[in-house]
């Protein structure tokens, strides 16, 4: 019975629950259902609604500190705006999850600047790398700084308020012709990490590149994701948080929901809607409306999180 209930919760919520969420989120929020996943999309201005008695955290992605192209000459400035928005939340988040591309070119000064900015939030930050962070020495400088004490290939897990978090690395050792890659060693580690966990434990998975074929033509996927997901299928609530594509795309597969996130640096085109996936130049007064942060809240007693994507406009 417990499993059936959480099945229901993971899928499209009931109309009643949706209305409850809408009431909590308040005005100025555009609710959309993409791929069957209801989400609140903040158009600007107001602060996040608090979830009473719940537990919340923030996902921030693709800060690309060091980027200096026309699409955003000041990614440190826009990251600063994102951190101000996080600081203004009525409910203090338990932590920030950074889903990769912290830097643009893996340079020490970029890592320095990013770390100082992130530390200014005075919140615990968990990092995973993007492919821009592992350009030097298979990511060793990144892992030494942002995954201290992690012995394996940079992947790790932790528990917070009853939720099990798994932080994966799918940007190292990419093979010609391929997309993102986890590798056998990491998948074996994941299997062991999840072993013995109750199927009713809510799971959050972090990975930079999408763990589903979001748009293989632009390498927006992970070649061996299916093998990893096979170990997650038995859980009632699995929330996959990805970055990489600088926009929100979502998908449901059984109890697993996949969500990519906006960047804080620059947007990228929607799949196939430009000649390639390069930085999308928009008029400067529109840039912040295409950047954003995500709040993830577990209401008291709920195993299914409510995700709120909010732009920096």
């Amino acid at each position, binding site marked *: 019975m417990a499993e059936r209930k959480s099945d229901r919760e993971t899928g499209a919520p009931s109309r009643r629950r949706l209305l409850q969420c809408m009431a909590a989120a308040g005005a100025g929020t555009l609710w959309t259902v993409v791929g069957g996943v209801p989400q609140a999309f903040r158009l600007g201005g107001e602060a996040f609604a608090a979830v009473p008695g719940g537990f919340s955290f923030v996902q921030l992605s693709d800060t690309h500190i060091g980027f200096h*192209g*026309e*699409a955003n000459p000041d990614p440190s400035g826009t990251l600063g705006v994102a951190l101000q928005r996080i600081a203004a939340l009525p409910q203090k988040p338990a932590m920030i999850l950074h889903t990769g591309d912290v830097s*643009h*070119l*893996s340079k020490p000064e970029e890592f320095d600047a990013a770390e100082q900015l992130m530390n200014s939030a005075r919140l615990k930050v968990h990092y995973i790398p993007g*492919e*821009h962070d592992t*350009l*030097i020495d298979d990511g060793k400088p990144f892992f030494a700084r942002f995954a201290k004490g992690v012995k394996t290939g940079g992947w790790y897990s932790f528990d917070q308020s009853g939720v099990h978090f798994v932080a994966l690395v799918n940007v190292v050792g*990419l*093979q*010609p*012709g*391929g*997309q993102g890659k986890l590798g056998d060693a990491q998948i074996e580690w994941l299997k062991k990490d999840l072993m013995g966990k109750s199927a009713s434990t809510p799971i959050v998975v972090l990975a930079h590149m999408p763990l589903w074929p979001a748009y293989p*033509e*632009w*390498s927006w996927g992970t070649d061996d994701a299916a093998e990893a997901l096979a170990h997650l299928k038995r859980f009632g609530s699995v929330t996959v948080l990805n970055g990489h594509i600088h926009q929100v795309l979502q998908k449901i597969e059984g109890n697993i929901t996949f969500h990519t996130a906006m960047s804080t640096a620059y947007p990228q085109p929607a799949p196939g809607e430009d*000649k*390639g*996936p*390069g*930085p999308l130049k928009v008029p400067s007064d529109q840039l912040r409306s295409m950047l954003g942060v995500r709040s993830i809240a577990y209401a008291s007693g709920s195993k299914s999180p409510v995700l709120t994507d909010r732009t920096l406009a």
Partner: protein
Amino acid sequence: MPRLSRAAAATAAILIAFAAGSYWRLAVPHAHAVVAMPMEHQPGAAHGAKPIAAPGPSQVMIDNFAFGPATLTVAAGTEVVWINEDEEPHTVTASGDKPLFKSPPLDTHDKFSFVFKKPGTYAYFCALHPRMWGIIIVR
């Protein structure tokens, strides 16, 4: 799509498949994308002119997530220069466990060069965007 780019795509696909062996299944559609995409944005390409107009015979331009030309034939001893004209960083990394050449990350306008001394077919890719492929044929 111009007829020439289809022919070039097919040629590159065959060459890549030849060089890549087990990547046959993956390489064919990607090679098509690699070759076809930039050419649509090359002035003159539609009229059957040289696929890449600007660079000299030993240059490979990196533009819009593609190496152009995707297949370059040079004489032994030639120095090949890659120039990144994309807003995205890229690498030039020879395929294989022990790459013969491997560039640092190339930011916009950065260059990388390598001298090909021995005849042969050399496949390379971008380690950030591994569907970006290129071939250097040394005669």
